[in-house]
């Protein structure tokens, strides 16, 4: 049959359970649709032709962002990038996530796209994945077997692949509690405003009273199939005051773990050169915002 004549069935359930059932019924060719910013473009280009679209937009719980009593923040999968960019519940180190959201694409795409759609699509150059890894987020997933939660690091398997099983959907992103002294920073390099990242770095740090780093997570985007976290570099920086030498040494450890390719956005060689510089800038900015007097 002609692809252009394929009919797509459209459903708009009210609950997660209904959505999961509708997807299961229709089998492999069914797809959830959230913002549609990516999926509709794929359909227009005839790269995918779903037999059924299950819109998640009418499911109340997915549209909420809540601050929970334990200090964690639960971002519903349907939260738009623009909402997350301006989210008042995101403070201290969580700002690595709002920072990433605010740098996605352009205002129309930020009004449309959702955090659930973005991480499910798992573009290797997308902005949320490194920020969620740096924020030590957990992804909540619902499927025929019920709900489960996995760390962001285990969710992104690389090159558009995720830990989602067939029929599963992302329902929320959960950010763990953070201390007030913590900070988060997302640095993105792109060719023009609104482009996907050529490379990006996400960092979260906590300090003690004497400005010594007590905890630190960092992840790099756009330099491989998914976000790349470098624990050796994190360890090397914990216990320092982010002195220049320490940062330069840690950046070298990061570069050793990157796996970039040449593409139209930039060469692999350039990515290897620029990531340490972006890291340095991110650390500099963080140190400076903490100590404006310097």
């Amino acid at each position, binding site marked *: 049959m002609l692809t252009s004549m394929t009919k797509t069935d459209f459903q708009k359930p009210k609950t997660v359970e209904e959505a999961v059932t509708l997807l299961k019924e229709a089998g492999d060719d069914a797809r959830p649709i959230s913002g549609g910013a990516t999926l509709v473009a794929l359909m227009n280009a005839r790269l995918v032709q779903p037999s059924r679209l299950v819109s998640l937009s009418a499911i109340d719980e997915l549209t909420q962002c809540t601050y929970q009593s334990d200090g964690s923040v639960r971002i519903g999968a349907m939260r738009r990038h623009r909402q997350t960019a301006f989210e008042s519940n995101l403070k201290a180190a969580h700002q690595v996530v709002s920072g990433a959201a605010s740098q996605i694409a*352009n205002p129309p795409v930020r009004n449309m796209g959702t955090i659930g759609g973005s991480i499910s699509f798992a573009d290797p150059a997308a902005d949320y994945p490194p920020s969620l890894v740096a924020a030590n987020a957990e992804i909540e997933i619902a499927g025929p077997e019920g709900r489960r939660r996995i760390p962001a690091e285990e969710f992104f398997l690389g090159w558009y692949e995720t830990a989602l099983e067939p029929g599963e959907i992302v329902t929320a992103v959960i950010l763990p509690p953070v201390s007030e002294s913590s900070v988060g920073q997302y640095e993105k*390099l792109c060719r023009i405003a609104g482009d996907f990242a050529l490379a990006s770095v996400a960092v979260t740090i906590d300090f003690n009273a004497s400005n010594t780093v007590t905890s630190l997570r960092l992840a790099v985007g756009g330099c491989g199939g998914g976000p790349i976290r470098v624990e050796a570099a994190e360890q090397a920086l914990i216990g320092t005051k982010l002195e220049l030498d320490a940062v330069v040494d840690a950046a070298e450890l990061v570069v050793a773990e990157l796996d970039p390719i040449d593409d*139209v956005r930039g060469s692999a060689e350039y990515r290897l*050169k*620029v990531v340490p*510089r*972006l890291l*340095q*800038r991110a650390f500099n900015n963080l140190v400076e915002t903490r100590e404006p007097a310097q």
Partner: protein
Amino acid sequence: MDGIDMQGVGSSPHRLEIMEKVTGSAEYIADLSRPNMLHAAITQSTVAHAKILGYDISDAMAVPGVVCVLTGEDFPDGRMGAFIKDEHAIAKDKIRYFGEPVAVVAAETEAIAREAAKRVIVKYEELPAILSPEEGLAEGAAIIHEDLDSYIKVFPAISSGNMASYTELNEGDLEAGFAEADLVVEGTYDTAPQAHLAIEPCGALADIDKQGRVTLWSANQSVFRVQANVCESLMMPMGKLRCLTPRVGGGFGNKMEPHIQPLVVRMTQATKRPVKMILNREEDFECVRARHPFKVRCKTGVKKDGTITAREVEVLLDCGAFGDDSPGVLGYSLLMSLGPYRIPNSKASGKLVYTNKLRFGAFRGFGNPQVAFAGETQLDQIAEKLGMDPLDLRQKNLIQPGDVWFGGGQVASNGLQECVDKARAASDWDNRKSRTAPKGKRRGTGVALSAHISGLLGTGAIIRVFEDGSVALNTGAVDIGQGSDTVLSQMCAEALKIPLEKVSLASPDTDGSPYNWGTTASRVTYTTGRAVVGAAAEVEKQLKEHAAQMLECSEMDLELRPGGIVGVSGSDKEVSFHQISLRAHWAAGGPIVGHHTWVFNQPTIDPKRAVCSGIPFPQVGVFSFGCLIVDTLTDEASGKTEVAEAWSAVDVGKAINPSSVEGQIVGGFVQGMGFALTEEMVWDGPKLANPTLLDYKVPTTLDTPYNIHSIIVEAAEPDGPFGAKGAGEIGLVAVPAAIANAIADAIGGHVHSLPMKPEKVLNKMLEIEDAT
């Protein structure tokens, strides 16, 4: 009529078609349809260079809804080409680039046509693909056009093997010039292919009548070039094709020569039904045309005091698979390669080489931005070595009023000095070093000067006076969004002293419009404007003949009065155009129609002064000038550069519509900024790797400086209409060079390659750091 705003020359009325554009009701080619219309789609080649052994169209024909499939075998053997007639309407016998149309499918819907087009099978025998000019010139290289020698060429072409054209210009004594110099600087510079990216992709719709005469609507920059190209390639008598135009959504050179028009015409002939085809963005990228990548070797000699004694420029151009406008781009770039300076001893030469890539062709600037990038950055390198201010070095060598151009062509008006003075003052150039940069950025300021022509070839205008005394203007010039409809109407209104609303403009039509070579070469305001002024003078003469009889006076005593009135000087006796026109229509003399046609005929080369060969056009145009200063910020971490502010002073002779001129200056700046910083078509082997807006990046509003100051300079062109000359391209020409100079000011060295993307700038910064 005192106090009435006539909206004539020097005012900025709204575009005539503004309401339909802002309300989205303007009709572009994709909006048109005809009863019983078919939709067509192309099959594109999947190899770059091959012999075609045969086709299998059975799968495509079997798709329900498909009406007709045409391949190269179904097309006549005619060849078209602006300079070298080397191109069939569709690939015939041979494939010459990846993505070249090899078959056309017509079906009841576009989706069916596109689906069926994927099912056309072409059997190829692959040949080695030539993917760079160097490969094309190498000994033993596969030949792309075996019959090049026998092709018709419209200029004294020097061509052989894969070399489509060689051009050379010489003036003075080059060796002596370099011997005289205290300092000689030499460098090579390269530029990347840029896509035109008109917001509207190419499209066409053709219909055939009972006598076999075809009417063709298309996205175009000249209905007359469309007619000529289709008729040449399909071997049709010109009278069998009528070309019309809907609104056009931008061109920049992309729509000047043919795209898919011959394909839809052939399809309507084959099916006897209306046929429409609209390219999608990828197809528009892959099989229309793009700006030439240049390799430029530039060598300049100067004395210690900054006086330039000699320059030698050598260019190598990738032609792509077909000649198209390339020989013109080569010749024109060489003509402009000295910039607006007095350089007594010079040589400019270049080769244009066929490759198995998309044809390269006309693009706003026509080769001039590429050579300006080389020449103007080299001047800054010289200034640095001499310890001179870059603007002072230029000032010392400026072409002066009365000087001729490289090759000996006359330069009548010259507002360059005023451009330099005004840009220098407005940008506070002399205090530029006191401007600071935000943390993590380096600020730079750069300057570049430019010259460009407006002119070329034939043009006409017809003005008819309606019975009610208003007038119809018909020129055949296609307004591609730049505003020529409004500007030509303003000139007509001004010449006849009537309000703008009394001028109605005919849409271009090869049946009824006088000839217009095209909307290109910054020419419409200047050349068509002259035709309008000439036709208006003819109308004025006829009006006065009538008025003299009606008022019983001598024609000599008559004058035009504002509002469509002819009166007797010094008296209140007068008649209106309305009264005159009624008499002309019903009583005496016949309807009033004035017309004027002309062809630009001022020689480019003075053989007593210059020794030249392979010159593609002997008569180019009159000169516009510009001085551009930009302020940039380069990010220290990444090398990414943004333009913070720009001051663009441009000599346009006379701004007929000042806000349209500003639009051209600002638009040219932004398009030049994309060329300078981000835009680059990239090939992965034989295949274009980034034919989408996801991968090919043009600057957005957020990447564009808020302040692009347009400074209009008016050095009247003596024979220009109301003194006007072109403004369409000059604002782009200097942009890459000025930005390159600003970046060099910021980081301490020049990037010699466009686009100056972050990677190249960072590498340069690191190279400089390592050296110090």
